[in-house]
């Protein structure tokens, strides 16, 4: 796999600064939208909230995801870029299949985590955001979760960067922790945009918490904290199994794996 063109001029420093700026603005847009949704909104979702918060959540998270993609994608080497469509297909196929079953999990981030482990946090974040946007062409309800998917890709990349995929038993732990962040992040989106969850199984869990007297946001957060950590622990374990099943020749083609010794036994270059 080649990584960059030998014949065409490399981009200048100004372009690099612009991309960094786009990444920062994307992250800031996502963070600001989240903080606003959590802090500035009344806890009673049923009285008067809805439309303004929904539009704000949709536009803020979408803008952030698009800026992240615009900032990161041009820096991704072609060898990694060609893997992103494969990752997106894995996400969409598994996500659609699991979403149609009565299991309160998602398994829609296997491809994102795979790219994050092979190519790093930035590529993972861009893959997550792209996954949400491309999947929304078939299932528009996933669009507001694109920013959350970017967070999962980023955290998976960080876990790989700091060696949590070097020991097999650490991968599900990293997944579990990532799932806590993902759950806390996605709950306000589900609450403010949809007023609930899109699956019957997850809806049943939310209604169980509602029956116990929880507010809607609290019930959805608890459901997310039940589903997401387990879901991500499974996803991280599956990805660990996959990357260790791949031939060493294939995984060592990725500079991120070589540079940060992501996998056990992989020698640094």
């Amino acid at each position, binding site marked *: 796999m080649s990584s960059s*063109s030998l014949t065409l001029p490399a981009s200048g420093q100004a372009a690099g600064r612009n991309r960094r700026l786009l990444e920062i603005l994307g992250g800031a847009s996502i963070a600001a939208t989240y903080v606003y949704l959590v802090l500035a909104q009344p806890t009673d979702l049923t009285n008067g909230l809805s439309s303004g918060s929904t539009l704000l959540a949709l536009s803020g998270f979408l803008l952030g995801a698009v800026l992240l993609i615009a900032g990161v994608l041009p820096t991704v080497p*072609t060898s990694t870029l060609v893997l*992103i469509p494969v990752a997106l297909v894995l996400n969409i196929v598994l996500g659609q299949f699991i979403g149609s079953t009565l299991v309160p999990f998602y398994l829609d981030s296997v491809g994102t985590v795979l790219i994050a482990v092979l190519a790093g946090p930035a590529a993972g974040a861009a893959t997550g955001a*792209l996954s949400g946007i491309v999947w929304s062409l078939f299932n528009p309800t996933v669009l507001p979760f694109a920013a959350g998917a970017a967070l999962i890709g980023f955290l998976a990349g960080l876990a790989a960067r700091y060696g949590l995929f070097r020991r097999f038993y650490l991968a599900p732990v990293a997944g579990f922790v990532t799932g806590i962040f993902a759950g806390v992040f996605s709950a306000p989106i589900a609450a403010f945009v949809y007023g609930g969850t899109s699956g019957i199984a997850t809806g049943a869990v939310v209604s169980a918490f509602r029956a116990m007297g929880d507010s809607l946001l609290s019930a959805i957060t608890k459901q997310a904290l039940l589903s997401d950590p387990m879901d991500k622990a499974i996803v991280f374990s599956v990805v660990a199994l996959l990357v260790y099943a791949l031939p060493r020749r294939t995984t060592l083609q990725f500079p991120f794996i070589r540079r940060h010794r992501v996998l056990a036994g992989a020698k640094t270059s």
Partner: protein
Amino acid sequence: MLPDSPAGPGGLNPLTLLSAAVVIAVTTTAINSWAVSAAVLLLLATLLALNGLGRKVLPAAAVIMVPFWLSLLLTHGLFFHEGRTILWTAGPVRVTAEGLQFAAGMGLRTAVFVVVCLAFSFSVRPADLMALLTKYRFPPQLGFVLCSTLTIAPAVSGRARRIAQAQQSRGLVTGQGAGGRLRAVQQQAVPLVMALLHEAGSRADSLEARGFGGRGPRTSYREVPDSPAQRIIRWLAVAALAVFLMLWFGPGWFTPGGVR
């Protein structure tokens, strides 16, 4: 969006369709009334049926919306303890008029969003979208990822089927408890992912050899239908939406309930 989707209805530019979809979805969400959402949904269904897109869009929307509606009904229809008008009660279950109204409002509002997005997806060709992204100087990588995902999906499912057949011909038997199933999944998933990674590697070499990693401007030989009238309509639609949102959310005098 499918690789062989027909051209946009009446030769419409994808941006015109996108601006129409955004205007409809944002306006319905801002108004946030189940009656308005139901009326818009009915209008959209009629328009799509007349256009011939209804047969594709409406079943696809139903597949997404039926579980979502059931989930909302379960959450708000049965356990809406903020509701005051109780219609039926049994143990912890309490069906209230407010809960049903909230579920209907959210369900219909989301249905409009899903139908307009799917109508856009089913009316736009990936090649047109890629030409537009090139025209407006978006990163070429975005167009590649978008179109590549849409075109490799059938190839991936075909390869997965062939791998499953190959493993079955080697004696793989599925359906013997959870462990057996897991082993069967692993024996199919690992070769599939390996094959996909290998193919992606050779695709990267081919793309690099054709200057894909270059930073210069790109030229698209594809002409996407557009007209001055459509450009004016797009700008007018976006401007009207901005004015509507300012009036709707801005000054309290416009709406009886004040700021929403």
